[in-house]
């Protein structure tokens, strides 16, 4: 991986970045700005408390606050059920089934002493039981304006294992009276299948940014408890006490943040000065957090509409989203070829075990962004010989830039047309030619595959080369319907002809 090191070594912040860092530290110490929760707690206690929740979001064996989060038991039935519900990772939607008897999940109750799920708000945002003097009529939102003087990203201990996109029907079941159309709504669940929150977003097309198309105009988070925020704005110490609003008798706190936080700095399109407006309220035990980013006037009008609509819609019924069949995600080892062939999606595409080989390992991966199967066979009885044959099976729709070769043009895939160098630069000679796209991994239709074609890919290379990818690939792929099978191999003890025969025997059509 020396190329990786060489590339990373070229990344440097330079003097400009160093000055930026020092200036920020200097401003922080000199302005006496309000900090986040670490100022409320004793810094030592907060640091220990916060450090205790540092965890890998993918390691669910650790405690979340006082709740255990044991690794979920993965039942084969649930796995098969999950797999049959999904055609590809991007299209996974778990069925909403009411199975109160089958699913014995704990009730989602926030213990009073659980603080890990909740990070104290800065002092300028009081908790909902703050009672403001009756200075305004019910039904009018009071906007508390704050100048951003700094901001902090906070670590939080909650995590979402699975996000279920909600259909209109599901959303209507939970929020029967809410009638504003939103662009995306999802329910987030932890690993145990407990509902963590509902997220609803408005993503106007003109607001989608190049790399993260989730810069939203409106972001609504609804939960049974107040969700901790990742981003805390720091405002001037002399800010006036914020005033609570009352909408339909529900106390609502609205803060308008203006200035140089991370969000207003984003280059939105169209470019106009933006503010970020936060509103929090609780209604019948459900916590609502509404964020709007827009120009000042439009944002204030829009959040007013949102808040009024949410409160007017009445109490949410989150229990309708509690019972959900969770997809069983992860990497699952495959113990036998028979087990691989039982897979409802890829089992039919598993080749025969090559003669003289045995199963080395197999993995079935099923996550939000991967859905595939890998199997490797090794030479039986020769543990010190590293020869192997490997297949990687996935849906063709999950592969970008798939090019199926015309088998009549052998220059696209036949290694005998090209000298095999141990230096990757030989590929440069193919730049601009169709062969450049196909020579390392040609894709053949299953109906075009012959032993002769496989022989053209079963090339000999020197085992002295350290990194196989430096010398090109002798792999190839087979497109069988909508499924792609990628085959790679290292067969040092076989001559070219025998190698091709071995692979053909694995793949040839059976009567």
């Amino acid at each position: 991986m020396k190329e990786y090191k060489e590339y990373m070594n070229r990344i440097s912040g330079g003097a400009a970045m160093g000055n930026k860092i020092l200036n920020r530290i200097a401003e922080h110490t000199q302005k006496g700005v309000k900090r986040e929760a670490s100022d409320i707690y004793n810094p030592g206690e907060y640091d220990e408390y916060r450090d205790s929740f540092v965890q890998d979001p993918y390691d669910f064996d650790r405690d979340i606050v006082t709740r255990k989060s044991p690794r979920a038991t993965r039942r084969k039935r649930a796995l098969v059920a999950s797999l049959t519900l999904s055609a590809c990772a991007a299209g996974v939607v778990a069925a909403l089934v009411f199975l109160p008897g089958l699913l014995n999940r704990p009730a989602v109750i926030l213990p009073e002493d659980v603080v890990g799920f909740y990070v104290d708000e800065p002092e300028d945002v009081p908790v909902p039981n703050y009672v403001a003097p009756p200075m305004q009529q019910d039904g009018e939102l009071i906007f508390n304006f704050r100048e951003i003087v700094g901001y902090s990203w906070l670590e939080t201990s909650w995590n979402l294992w699975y996000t279920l996109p909600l259909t209109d029907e599901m959303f209507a079941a939970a929020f029967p009276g809410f009638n504003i159309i939103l662009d995306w709504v999802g329910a987030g669940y932890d690993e145990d299948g407990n509902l963590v929150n509902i997220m609803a977003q408005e993503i106007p097309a003109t607001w989608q940014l190049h790399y993260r198309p989730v810069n939203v105009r409106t972001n609504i988070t609804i939960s049974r408890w107040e969700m901790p925020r990742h981003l805390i704005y720091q405002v001037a110490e002399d800010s006036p006490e914020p005033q609570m609003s009352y909408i339909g008798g529900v106390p609502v706190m609205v803060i308008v943040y203006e200035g140089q936080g991370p969000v207003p700095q984003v280059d939105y399109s169209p470019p106009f000065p933006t503010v970020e407006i936060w509103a929090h309220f609780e209604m019948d035990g459900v916590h609502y957090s509404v964020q709007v980013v827009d120009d000042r006037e439009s944002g204030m009008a829009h959040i007013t509409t949102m808040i009024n609509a949410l409160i007017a819609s009445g109490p949410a019924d989150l229990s309708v989203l509690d019972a959900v069949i969770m997809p069983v995600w992860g990497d699952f080892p495959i113990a036998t070829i028979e087990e691989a062939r039982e897979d409802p999606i890829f089992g039919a595409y598993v080749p025969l075990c090559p003669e003289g080989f045995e199963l080395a390992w197999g993995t079935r991966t099923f996550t939000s962004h991967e859905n595939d199967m890998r199997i490797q066979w090794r030479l039986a009885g020769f543990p010190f010989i590293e020869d192997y044959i490997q297949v990687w099976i996935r849906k063709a729709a999950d592969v970008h830039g798939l090019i199926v070769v015309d088998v009549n043009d052998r220059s696209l895939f036949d290694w005998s047309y090209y000298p095999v160098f141990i230096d990757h630069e030989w590929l440069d000679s193919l730049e601009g030619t169709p062969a450049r796209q196909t020579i390392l991994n040609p894709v053949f239709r299953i109906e075009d595959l012959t032993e002769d074609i496989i022989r053209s890919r079963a090339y000999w290379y020197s085992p002295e080369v350290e990194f196989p990818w430096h010398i090109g690939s002798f792999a190839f792929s087979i497109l069988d319907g909508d499924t792609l099978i990628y085959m790679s191999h290292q067969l040092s003890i076989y001559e070219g002809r025998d190698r091709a025969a071995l692979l053909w025997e694995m793949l040839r059509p059976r009567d």
Partner: protein
Amino acid sequence: MKPSNRPVEWNEVENAVSRHMDRLLRTAVAILGCLAEAEDIVQETFLRLYEHKPQFTSQGHETAWLIRVTVNLCKSRLKSHWWSKSAPLLDIYPAKNDFEHNLMETVLSLPHKYRAVIHLYYYEGYSTYEIADITAQTEAAVRQQLSRGRQKIKDALATI
């Protein structure tokens, strides 16, 4: 680690920035794949160094602490909806040849958890045991992520 109440000399801050800024930037870039966000993370990391004033037993201890904070801040940022607009990393720091470009493109397309361990292993030279401590997970998980990350890179480069 309990923060101390000792005053921090400004030159200590400058020295720390000078020693560690680029390393932390590379770590954050490796995980996030975005230079603007990574710069933010690095600023925040040094701010925490200044605020908490930890006492380190060695240079290695200081480095590991800073990297650990950087990794944790990256994890939090990944959970957030709010991201800065930024040019692709490979546009800002172009690769010097096709292979390097393909390699970096492949690495940057890996899941974040794989990128973190790959960077800490291959660039920083940490052992899996040390990476487990930095990323707060088991050593077995680190080994698995490393193995799978390598395999994914190998497979992806073979298809290019």
